[in-house]
Each structure stands twice: as structure tokens, then as C-alpha cells.
């Protein structure tokens, strides 16, 4: 037990600690340490823009993924054949790396991509889904991969409990819509909330999809943080760290809020 906890402590606490110190100028690459909040001052409003975009991407992806994931889980309950088919689809999607998903979605949605070829659209009329003003392709990629994850979690929960309740509800005269509303959805809600929370914090802190499919400006928090981190201007380091700390604070707050909401549904307490 000691070894795993130590490893986590080393990476999480040391890592975030060093990030925090560097964001405050207390661990400079050169020169003497001096406490400064300049990196958080956000004079040009870039930190705020990046935060807004990150939250938009995370919320949009999570909402879409939750809707499709829930629909998939409900559809899987309709018949054994539907369940086999959807289980196979989900199992095929879940192990695909996000980076590969992003590369493929790029090949699908870019101008000159598969969809524009099939629809016979010219590059001028094709909407800029990839690297356009709105993070459409980014949200679609996240929603695609994460909907499979959510479907997996919700199907697993429903599968163990749904049949008995449904039978009882049907015997008591409940129609299909009443069963969906009063039996299936309440049973699915805790697992749906849990999986959605994981999706939200993951998409908030993930780098490669937004980097590959998003525009050069505006950038979400992780993309901007990485650009400043690798900038030749060493003075940009504290700003990169401040962006990383902002992401951490948002993810931590979201995780705590979700934990409070779905506390009772955790597999153990």
C-alpha cells in the first residue's frame, strides 16, 4: 500500500506543488525567487478567454456524450440483439486513443475531407468545422469517444437491475414512456452523473484533441499552457504554470461538486 500512495504523492503533490511555485515566481529557472502574482494578472484577458473556451468545450462535449451514451444504454436494454450490437460498437470505440480519434475526425470533417467529398461540397462552401471559430470538431471528437465510455458505464448499471423493475412496473400498468421516465431514468441517473463528471474533468484537462482540431486562436487552457511552456521566452513560464493551475482548480472544483452529488452511488464509501 505504501508504494502506490508514495508514487501518487510524488507525482500529484510534487508536480502540482512545483507548478504552483513556478506560477508564483518562487521556483525560477534563472535568478532569485521572488513572490509575484503577475502571471495571474491576465492583463489582456487571455486567461479569461481560454477559461471560457475550455468550459464551453467540456460542457458541450459532456452534454452531447451524456445524451448519446444514455440513448445507447436505453437502446441496449430493448432487446438482446440490440445489446450485443451496441456492446460491440462501444467495445470497439473505447480503446481508440483520443489522438487517433482526433486524427480520424480531422480526415472526416476538414474541407477536402471524406464528408465534403461525399457531399460534393466545394472547399468554399464547406463550413470550417476543423480549426474554425467554434470548436465543432473538438466537441464532436470528445463526444464520440466519451459517449462510448458513458454508454459502457450506464449499460453496466442498468443491466444488473432493470429487468425486475420493468416487469413490476409493466404489471402495475405502466406504459413504455412511463417506464422510461419513472424507472429507467432514475436508475440510470447516478451512473450517468458519475460518468459525465469523469468526462467533464477529462475534457477540461486534455491537450491533444483541441490542439489538433482547434484553431490557432482562441486556445483552451491546456493548449495555451503548452504553447507558453515550450516558448523560447522563459518569462512566459510562470504564465504557462498559472494556466495549468487554473485548469487544476476548475477540474478539482468540478470533481468535488460531482463527488458531493453522486456520493451515495460510489461502489464503496
Amino acid at each position, binding site marked *: *500500500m505504501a508504494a*502506490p*500512495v508514495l*508514487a*501518487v*504523492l*510524488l*507525482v*500529484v503533490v*510534487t*508536480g502540482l*506543488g*512545483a*507548478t*504552483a511555485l513556478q506560477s508564483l515566481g518562487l*521556483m525560477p*529557472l534563472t535568478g532569485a525567487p521572488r513572490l509575484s502574482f503577475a502571471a495571474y494578472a491576465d492583463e489582456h484577458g487571455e486567461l479569461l478567454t481560454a477559461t471560457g473556451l475550455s468550459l464551453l468545450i467540456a460542457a458541450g462535449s459532456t452534454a452531447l456524450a451524456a445524451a*448519446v451514451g444514455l*440513448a445507447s444504454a436505453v*437502446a441496449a436494454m*430493448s432487446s438482446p440483439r440490440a445489446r450485443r450490437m*451496441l*456492446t460491440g*460498437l462501444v467495445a*470497439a470505440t*473505447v*480503446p481508440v*486513443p483520443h*489522438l*487517433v480519434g*482526433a*486524427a*480520424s475526425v480531422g*480526415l*472526416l470533417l476538414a474541407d*477536402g475531407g471524406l464528408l465534403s467529398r461525399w457531399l460534393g461540397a466545394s472547399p468554399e462552401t464547406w463550413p470550417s468545422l476543423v480549426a474554425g471559430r467554434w470548436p465543432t470538431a473538438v466537441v464532436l*471528437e470528445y463526444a*464520440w469517444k466519451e459517449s462510448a465510455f458513458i454508454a459502457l*458505464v450506464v449499460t*453496466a*448499471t442498468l443491466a444488473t437491475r432493470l429487468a425486475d423493475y420493468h416487469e413490476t412496473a409493466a404489471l402495475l400498468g405502466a406504459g*413504455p414512456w412511463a417506464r422510461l421516465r419513472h424507472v429507467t431514468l432514475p436508475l440510470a441517473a447516478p451512473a450517468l452523473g458519475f460518468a459525465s463528471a469523469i468526462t467533464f*474533468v*477529462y475534457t*477540461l*484537462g*486534455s*491537450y491533444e484533441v483541441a490542439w*489538433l482540431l482547434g484553431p490557432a486562436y482562441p486556445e483552451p487552457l*491546456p493548449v495555451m*499552457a*503548452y504553447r507558453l*511552456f515550450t516558448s523560447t521566452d522563459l518569462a512566459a513560464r510562470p504564465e504557462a*504554470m498559472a494556466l*495549468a493551475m487554473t*485548469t487544476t482548480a476548475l*477540474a*478539482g472544483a468540478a470533481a468535488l461538486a460531482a463527488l458531493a452529488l453522486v456520493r451515495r452511488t460510489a*461502489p*464503496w464509501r
Partner: protein
Amino acid sequence: MTRTRRALGALLLILLLAWFLTPLLPLVLWAGAESWPGTSRLPQRWGLGNVTSVFASQGGAAVLRSLTLGTAVAALATPAGAVAARALALREVRWPRLAAGLLFAPVALPVFAMVMGLNVVLLRLHVPGFLGIVLVLVVAALPYTTFLMRAAYAAYDVAFEDEARTLGASPGAVRWRVRLPLLAPALVGAAFLAFLVGWSDYIVTLLLGGGRYVTLPILVASAASGTGNEPTVAALSLVAIAAPAVLLIVAGLLSRRLTPKRRRTAERTGPALSSPLLVEGAA
């Protein structure tokens, strides 16, 4: 009434089929395209040239590096997760909530933020890049392996161990001949998830490897960020999907074999891999 409902159900299934499969379609088409001018809807000439050329160039070495990374992460994160899960399950931890919270923190908090700070620390301590990458990815995989093993321990009866001990089994015999066989299916699932974390990682390798440790995802990213490389991107991506897919099938077969027959027919549960957290690591 029932007919409209059935039609609606079928429509939903078709839509879901399209939703899950369409994003992977370009990979198959582009990887097999020897020639595909922008004006035609399908490739004009098909062939395996794109995929074979992945291994002819630096792709072979990158695949090997990714396999090494995935295997190293699985080899460390699986037993570590099992140990942590056992301690949590048998309530051998002083502060169980704190320990569980810590072990799950890597899922809740962004890994890139930890790695940015850790980078300088590891450099000052002269930790080799590869070791740093493995350490971070093991920590990133721990929540998944711990969760899976914790779920397995919930269905595990420690009384078997006591019984074996009463019958005179040594601690080693209890571990290898009682505990391991009973937990084997879950261990296979946990190892697969941990492998995925190492196999799919991009940002940790990029930040700590400093461009010197070229794995398959690094190649995919550099090809995908350029223009006009569609066949290369697709071929590299297909290879990146193929290895986990093969492992998934092997793991499925293995955990089925490892599950005692009696339990299999009695419970009719799926293989260990159908567990909820099969995932993100994929994250």
C-alpha cells in the same frame, strides 16, 4: 402504436451505428488508398502500401517503443493497484478516505499540469526521461487498476485464504495458488487498461521526453498536424488501434479461460473487461 415504436427503435439503432462507426471510416479508406484524387468519392486504387511503409520507415521503432511503454506501465500499475485495492477492501488502511481520494486524484486533476511542474524537479534530480514518463503514467493508470481490483475484491471471499492456511498452506502457496487464480480475470482486465494508458499517451511523453522519445502517438500527431499526409496519418492510426484490439481479444479469451467454469455458468457475467472503467485511459 407498437409498429411506430419498433420503427423508432430501429431508427435509433441505425443512428447509433452511424455515430460510432463513421468517425473510424476515413482511417480504413485512406489507409487502403494508393491513389485518391480530391474529385472522386472513393479511392481509385487500393493496396496495402501505406501500412507496410509505416514499418519500413521509423514506424517500426516507434511501435516497439510504445509497446515497451505500455508493457512497463501495465507491469507496474497492475500489482500496485491490486495491493492498494486489497488494503482498501480489507480495511487495512489508517485513513481509508484520504488514501482512496489520493489514489483517484490522477483522474480528477489534469495530468499535464502535474507534469509541467514535475519536469524541472526531475531534471534537477537527473531522473532519465523514460523513467519519468513511466512513473507519471503508472500514477495515471493507478485509479483504473485500483478501481477494477477493488470491484474484484468486493466479490472475493478472503475466507478461502483462511481455509487454505488452516489446511497448512504456506503464505506463498496462499498467494500463488488461491488468491492469484481467483483474481486472475480482474488482473488481466486491469493490465489491459494500464497498457492502454502507456500505449495511447501523447502529452506526458512529449513534455518529459523532450522530443527524444518518439512513440507511435508522437508520429501520429506529427503526421496529422501537417497537410497532405492523409495516407500516412490513416496507416499510423490503424496500427495504433490494431495493437490494443488484438490485446483486447487475447485478454477476453484469457480471462474467460482463467474464470473457473463453475462460476462462469453460474453467474453469466461478461469477461472482466466489460467493467465500467474500461476507458478513459484510453484517456
